[in-house]
């Protein structure tokens, strides 16, 4: 690769798009650990810490934050290019809840004191955040959450339980949606609270998922005392704030990259199993291929909208549904043609490209997380098609 000069962080947003893309490629080439490319599982802090701190050191950690808060101040168009290149390179997700969720929320709604206190520690990697939203009784119906915070002098006292808290065992801070008014309509009695995980009364219990991986946790709160200055925004306005933060990042749930990766593995497997030339397989593969190409075209129309500075409407739910269901259909095909190899715990023949069962299992939660596909279809029918009820 030609030596491309990597400009200081503050200059990145001013680059022409294609030049910026080349800079991102060069940066990844020079900095991303080779052994972490395309990891089969979500990495823990111990594994991705080196990369996270390298990003922090380079000033690249927070692409979407404004420059005055220590971010790169990238436009949506450039953030998309950055993400495309990360995906292409097989860059693992970091423990990024502070970067993509909490940081933007504090920047938008936090007090000056809260910004000074929390943002720099995200930028240095000192604070690793996790997100406490879902509860056992509040999944798709998140606004039914019951974990409550009651004011007692200068503190809120928190009691309740969160679940599906991704990488909570790695985090030292958690941001919570808590109920602060039980009498109000369910969306209107919710507040946003920041909690130090070292506070007495917090218990974290990992959950083993179908990948046999401890990616998420249950987090229990038993009379946890949280200083009242840790409330972000107005009391009982937490729901609106959390919703307002569902920004253009939603488009990434519909990125065709995951399906493109799986489809190329389906081909490798089909050749290995000797079915590639079969007309029945060819037709099935062609259908999946065309689904992928049309999804790419549709995804491209949303990227173009963002590049023109438009915001995304509820119809972006289509991308998530189409992408995740295609990903599953591809792994379904892999399972069906692999014979007994499909049931193996480890990749077939020790070849990471032939991780049949692993990919099949990995595809399952895609239609559940980020708003299940059933919820996405509700959104489409009510908010896009204007269906009643």
């Amino acid at each position, binding site marked *: 690769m030609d030596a491309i000069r990597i400009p200081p962080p503050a200059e990145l947003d001013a680059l022409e798009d294609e030049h910026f893309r080349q800079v991102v490629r060069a940066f990844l080439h020079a900095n991303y650990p080779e052994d972490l490319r395309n990891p089969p599982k979500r990495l823990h802090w111990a594994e991705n810490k080196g990369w996270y701190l390298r990003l922090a050191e380079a000033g690249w950690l927070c692409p979407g934050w404004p420059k005055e808060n220590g971010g790169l101040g990238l436009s949506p168009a450039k953030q998309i290019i950055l993400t495309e290149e990360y995906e*292409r390179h097989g860059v693992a997700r970091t423990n990024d809840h502070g970067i993509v969720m909490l940081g933007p929320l504090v920047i938008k709604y936090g007090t000056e004191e809260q910004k000074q206190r929390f943002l720099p520690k995200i930028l240095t990697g000192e604070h690793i955040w996790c997100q406490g939203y879902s509860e056992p009784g509040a999944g798709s119906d998140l606004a039914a959450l019951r974990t409550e915070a009651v004011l007692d002098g200068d503190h809120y006292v928190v009691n309740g339980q969160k679940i599906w808290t991704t990488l909570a065992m790695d985090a030292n801070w958690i941001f919570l949606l808590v109920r602060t008014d039980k009498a109000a309509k369910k969306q209107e009695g919710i507040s946003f609270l920041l909690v130090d995980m070292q506070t007495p009364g917090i218990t974290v219990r990992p959950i083993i998922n179908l990948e046999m991986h401890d990616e998420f946790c249950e987090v229990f709160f038993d009379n946890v005392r949280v200083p009242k200055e840790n409330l972000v925004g107005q009391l009982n306005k937490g729901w609106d704030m959390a919703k307002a933060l569902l920004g253009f990042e939603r488009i990434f749930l519909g990125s065709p*990259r995951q399906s*493109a*990766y799986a*489809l*190329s593995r389906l*081909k490798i497997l089909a050749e290995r199993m000797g079915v590639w030339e079969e007309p029945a397989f*060819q*037709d099935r*593969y*062609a*259908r999946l*291929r*065309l*689904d*992928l*190409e*049309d*999804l790419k*075209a*549709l995804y*491209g*129309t949303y990227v173009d909208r963002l590049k023109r500075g438009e915001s995304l409407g509820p*119809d972006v739910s*289509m991308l998530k*549904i*189409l992408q995740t269901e295609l990903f599953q259909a591809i792994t379904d095909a892999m399972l069906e043609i692999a014979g007994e190899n499909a049931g193996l715990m480890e990749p077939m023949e020790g070849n990471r490209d032939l991780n049949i069962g692993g990919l099949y299992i990995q595809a399952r939660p895609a239609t559940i997380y980020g708003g299940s596909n*059933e919820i996405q*279809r*509700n959104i*489409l*029918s*009510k908010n*896009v*098609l*204007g*269906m*009643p*009820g």
Partner: protein
Amino acid sequence: MSAAETDDRAESIRMIRDSAAAVAPRGGDLKRVRDLRWQDPGFDAGLFRQMGEMGWIGLRVPEALGGAGLGVAEMCGLAEELGAGLVPEPLIPCALSAQLLAACGGKGRLPALLAGDAVVLTAWQERADTLEVPGSPDAPRRFLPMAAGADVFLLPLREGGRLALYELPAERCAPAVERTQDGGNLGTLQPNLQDATKLADDVGTALADALDEAALVTAAYLLGGMERAFAMTLDYLKTRQQFGKIIGTFQALQHRAADVRMQVALTRASIDSAAAALDAGAAGDARRAAVSRAKARAAEASLRVTRECIQLHGGIGYTDDYDAGLYLRKAMVLANQYGSASLHRRRFMAASPEVEE
């Protein structure tokens, strides 16, 4: 394209779409279309002439040859509007003939065709579900759309390594006509070479290129039909009551409607990106891949969507009085015209074997 060029282009496509309202008024009823069903020739020659006057038949023909010199995206936009109104006049096959005659330097009946005074059909097809043009001297030419109203046939003939083009007047060579599900007809022509006049020694790739475009424009016509049929269905779901409720409140129906919406969105994205690729000069495999992708999607989605529309209407959807069925029958005919979904999937894979990660 610069932002200004993009805006100009969008404006040009919008104007073409608006002009289509002269023939297929938005929100208009389908009485005219119903009245023409299964009558010979299956369309209105006067309206076809009007299409000529509006410059539609030569939309893709260069201005120097009397056409409008507009792009594939404009043609697709127009076809979409006509598809929404189920307009039966044979614009797509005649536009194909116009492109072919234009590629030969404007020979034969091109001026009359562009004016809408002559219906000129290209008799290229020798078997079902193909885009190949063998150009056999004696093989019957099959599946000529709206052949009952043809004035002139163009006959491609293989001569050595070249594809020559002949012209045959319809009055000397009447096609056998079969009626189609949508109320139109398909003709079979037994070519009579004594009456044929040679127009060109070699049309090169012009016919293959025009067939590609016709496949894509047919996809756009199907998209227009899908959208209109789906809009009708949404209206129905929002008004029909059963069990004391509007049936659109039932989640099972909401989710089916969401699935239909996604198929429509994929079809639009596929066609728009193919039209943009062709307008940007895509050639060879890239061109074939773009067209086949869009036609495969439109063929399958149009049948799926119109079927769903019938089901979501219930019994009323199965009556001939109700318009939903008209859209299904049109899809049954056009899904396989200029190549079925299955043909286009194979063609796509041949043109674009590798997935880009």
